[in-house]
């Protein structure tokens, strides 16, 4: 009995030691000199799940050039990201909307100054089932009729939106209220951020929405352009009439600002004091040089080249503060964006 217990104790001890050793000595930092290898340190990024694929792609490419800089990217939502950012816990936060006034105040209280950088466009896409042959183009008014809070329980059929549309049930799909996409859609369409009817199928997982709309002839839903682009065989995009005729979402119409009002810029926010660390400055510049190509690759739309140049200038001059603040802004065209920045 004695020896048995000793063996158990030994077993536990060995397990403990090996765990510690594995944890402590697991990955010795490789000190092979390589291009850009002189930079070391770690960069912490967190925030929006919408911007995550872009930051992930940039981090992946950055690692090839600067193997000794450890970049990690988390997902805690735009709001969660700003909370950590203004608390000084991370260096860069991904944001699918500009910083809000309340968040800016918290940052200021904690002495965190930031540089705001737009990195790509995302176009919200209104989709219907491929068998839907009536709703090819909708005005902002049509969408407002469907989605405003007053529609709850009353607008339940297609012909209530336009009389010529079928007398068939209208089933709605959209993101949940925690999403930046929801914030932007409601402010662009209904006119008030967060104002939406509640009786629709909501999911934080956009693939669930894709499934829902593709299996339901009378469905209508909205989500980010990337999810439509990957599922064009199962879904049909609705052209949006924002006052200047019907425009279908595409890389061109989002990039040149004609797809209105449902295209929005997405951002990264960088701490000013973190920029003084050479690895962070190198990373941010690398981000702006490659964001266009990489954003396109992961399903977003690049900003015009001039916008990235202006953003790099902001980094070089350490221009702090937000020019987009005040919550989601609707219909920010690239011209307006540039005007603000110059």
């Amino acid at each position: 009995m004695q020896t048995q217990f000793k063996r158990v104790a030994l077993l536990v001890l060995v397990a403990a030691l090996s765990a510690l050793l594995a944890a402590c000595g697991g990955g010795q930092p490789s000190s092979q000199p390589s291009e850009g290898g002189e930079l070391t340190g770690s960069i912490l990024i967190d925030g929006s799940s919408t911007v995550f694929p872009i930051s992930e792609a940039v981090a992946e490419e950055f690692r090839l050039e600067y193997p000794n800089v450890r970049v990690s990217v988390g997902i805690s939502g735009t709001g969660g990201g700003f909370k950590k950012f203004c608390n000084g816990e991370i260096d860069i936060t991904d944001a699918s909307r500009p910083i809000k006034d309340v968040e800016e105040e918290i940052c200021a209280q904690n002495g965190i100054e930031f540089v705001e950088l737009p990195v790509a466009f995302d176009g919200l896409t209104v989709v219907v089932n491929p068998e839907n042959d009536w709703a090819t183009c909708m005005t902002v008014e049509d969408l407002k009729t469907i989605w405003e809070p007053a529609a709850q329980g009353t607008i339940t059929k297609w012909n209530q939106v336009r009389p010529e549309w079928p007398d068939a049930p209208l089933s709605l799909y959209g993101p949940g209220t925690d999403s930046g996409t929801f914030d932007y859609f409601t402010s662009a369409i209904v006119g008030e951020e967060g104002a939406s009817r509640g009786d629709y199928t909501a999911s934080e997982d956009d693939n669930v929405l894709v499934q829902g709309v593709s299996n339901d002839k009378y469905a209508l839903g909205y989500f980010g352009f990337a999810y439509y682009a990957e599922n064009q065989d199962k879904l049909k995009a609705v052209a949006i009439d924002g006052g200047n005729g019907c425009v279908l979402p595409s890389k061109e119409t989002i990039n040149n600002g004609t797809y209105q009002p449902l295209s929005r810029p997405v951002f990264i926010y960088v701490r000013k004091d973190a920029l003084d660390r050479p690895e962070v400055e190198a990373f941010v510049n690398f981000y702006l040089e490659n964001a266009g190509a990489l954003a396109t690759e992961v399903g977003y739309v690049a900003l015009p080249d001039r916008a990235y140049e202006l953003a790099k200038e902001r980094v070089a001059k350490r221009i702090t503060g937000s020019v987009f603040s005040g919550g989601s802004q609707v219909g920010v065209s690239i011209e307006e964006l540039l005007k603000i920045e110059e």
Partner: protein
Amino acid sequence: MSLRDIAFEHQLARRHLKGRIFQVLAFAAICVGLVMLALLFFDVLRDGLGRLSWQFLTSFPSRRPERAGILSPLVGSVLMVTLMGVFAFPVGVGAAIYLEEYAPKNWLTDLIQINVANLAGVPSIIYGLLGLEIFARWLANYTGGRSLLTGSLTMALLILPIVIVSAREAIRAVPNDIRLAALALGATKWQMVRSHVLPYAMPGILTGMILAVSRAIGETAPLITIGALTYVAFLPDSLKSQFTVLPIQIFNWVSRPQAGFHVNAAAGIIVLLAILLSLNALAIYLRHRFEQRLKR
């Protein structure tokens, strides 16, 4: 045959019938579980088996689904669970020994016991919030913030009630004769616990421990709360290093628009299932070994 016997025979048939019906119902109940499991397993295997390869196991995550792998989450999961076990095992078993062998039987002990049992049912995200405040924020200087150490300490808290409850059950199942025999021969209480109670209870304690580990390895919510990351293209080099785990990576892949990532998610699930099943196999093996030894 008398009248009474006929009535009896008649009832016997009905009773047999009732017995059969119950048997069929019980069989149907187990079938529901097994069929669902088999369907799920088949679906995942069909989607992900083709993607499993050495490249998949040894690559870091990537924006291109075909280049992406699960090295960092795999290593992160294994390290985190090992460390968690190292923290939770001594504390959990120690607490169980105290409660069963030393604690006086009074209202305070009862209160503690009820609370430990209740803690086992608290949703895991609550432990995440606790870990975020205590380990990631208050003790940031010692744990390194959102680090491997923070993650494993939080998970250790999460499984502690389960470990304590199962270890107590195992210790309680040790026949009292064994304790009395040891004490009668002049053993001290510690000698009695160490050389008699613990070896006898060890198979049960280990089973509980492995079940707790199996639960922890699939947990996502508390780790997302404390800030385990999604894209990590390096392996942890210290306890204070950032890390990610399999469920977080799988969740991220499932929610991506590109179909290639969904295949990766299925392959990731197979890896997670393989780890889970081998942990369970290890538990069965260890239990068997200890039981064999006791018989000798």
